[in-house]
């Protein structure tokens, strides 16, 4: 299917476990982003990537790791999950770095850390 997909859609894990959230886009967009959405905070940027093998920190990167070996994939890993990382995670992509570019969001992954 064309577009941007995330998996899994729902995940329950325990404190201290490693968990990876997957993101895949079929548009060959250069830019990809990971956000977390929490009540009272809106959407906050965790990491972004300008191209394969180029990543950089966003507003709330602590406790997260990303990689981008292929243009279409941008996995987000929680190395040792904490309860404060319970959230809904959204992946997004954007075609270029130019101004006024729309970000296209995936359907989200709801993560619960017990």
């Amino acid at each position, binding site marked *: 299917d064309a577009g*941007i997909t995330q998996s899994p859609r729902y995940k329950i894990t325990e404190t201290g476990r490693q968990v990876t959230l997957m993101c895949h886009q079929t548009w060959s967009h250069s*830019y990809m982003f990971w956000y977390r959405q929490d009540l*009272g*905070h*809106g*959407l*906050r*940027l965790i990491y*972004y990537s*300008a191209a394969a093998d180029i990543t950089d920190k966003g507003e709330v990167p602590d406790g997260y790791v990303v990689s981008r070996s292929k243009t279409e994939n941008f996995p987000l890993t929680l190395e040792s999950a904490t309860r404060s990382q319970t959230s809904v995670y*959204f992946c*997004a992509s*954007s075609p270029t*770095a*130019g*101004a*006024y*570019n*729309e*970000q*296209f*969001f*995936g*359907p*989200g992954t709801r993560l619960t850390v017990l």
Partner: protein
Amino acid sequence: QQQVKQSPQSLIVQKGGISIINCAYENTAFDYFPWYQQFPGKGPALLIAIRPDVSEKKEGRFTISFNKSAKQFSLHIMDSQPGDSATYFCAASIDSGGYQKVTFGTGTKLQVIP
């Protein structure tokens, strides 16, 4: 540090009424102001956007009003419909080292009742 403040947090409007959501920003370097609409269980999607050199932009029943001197902008939904029930996020973006860094407001949950 909330650079984009959004109000109200929730809003209930009668069908056919006008829904108004307000946002204020601090950084005068922001150069693009998009609004995103999010339905339950879905990712946000771009609804309408405005540049700071324009005071108003209208697309169908949706209008952005922009007041550069007051550093405020608002979304007006005319003839609100039950299908407009969603969460709305204002945002502001700025060129940040090669990509458009987007700062989101905290969101407004709109319910349009028949």
